[in-house]
């Protein structure tokens, strides 16, 4: 009897955890999709007709076992790159992806040389 209770509790616990995981994945996808007919809203934020249809399609594709990338690729093929907030890596947006790291590295070098220079002048 005790074992049965434990099994039931475990079943509910894990099923709810699994459901939450799926919901998190759905919300994550919705948040990265732009509502094309709304002003600056994502599919997650919008209750428009377009957003609700996209949500249904995403849910269907998740049920079919499609990956996040496959879903994005499908929607990009239908609506263009504009539908996703996070652009895919292409040679056209290479700078967009690389620039923050370059600036970070440059900032590091500047700080390093300034500290070095400061120490040098103090030493003198």
């Amino acid at each position, binding site marked *: 009897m005790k074992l049965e209770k434990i099994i039931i509790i475990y079943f509910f616990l894990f099923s709810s955890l699994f459901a939450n995981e799926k919901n998190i994945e759905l919300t994550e996808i919705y948040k990265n999709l732009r509502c*094309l*007919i709304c002003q600056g809203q994502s599919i997650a934020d919008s209750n428009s*007709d*377009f957003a609700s*249809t*996209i949500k*249904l*399609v995403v849910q*269907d594709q998740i049920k079919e076992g499609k990956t996040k990338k496959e879903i994005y690729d499908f*929607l990009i*093929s*239908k*609506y*263009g790159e*504009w539908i996703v907030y996070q652009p895919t890596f292409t040679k056209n947006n290479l700078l967009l992806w690389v620039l923050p790291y370059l600036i970070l590295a440059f900032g590091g070098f500047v700080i390093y040389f300034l500290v070095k220079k400061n120490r040098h002048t103090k030493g003198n």
Partner: protein
Amino acid sequence: MKINISKIIIFSFVIFFLSIFWLGLKKDNNYDTKNFIGNKISNFQLSSIYNNDYISEEVLKKNKFTLINFFASWCAPCRTEHKYLINLSNKNKEFKILGISFKDKKKNSINFLNELGNPYNFVAEDADGKASISFGIYGIPESILINNELVIIKKIVGPIDQKYYEEILQLIQ
């Protein structure tokens, strides 16, 4: 003359960022469908609003040109474009029009066509709107002109007007 390297670096950064902003402002960020011309439409299967018949992309391959038009009885601009669709129907034997009733009740779509006339060679149903996503539709009315290889020749967002009507006529000649 001593060259101040840090000033040159800061100056080049300012110029670099200003040119990025300038390019960004010049770029048109409005959603545009012109990039979809030349793409193929996906496979689909939709049921008729009148009976249990189905239509798929295979049927459209038989027509030299097909205009796929998304409409609904609740859509006011669909009423304004309807006269152009009527004029387009039977213009050319090799040109057919597929109407897709978008998020509408069958009864209302049928009444709409009874009232304004039926320009479509086949009227299919997309009750939940999911099929429209496969066509890249994001509002109605929207129309897609394809050839017998299912390649998009023209995509019209919004109602067909005189300008679009003449453009379609030219394309299907």
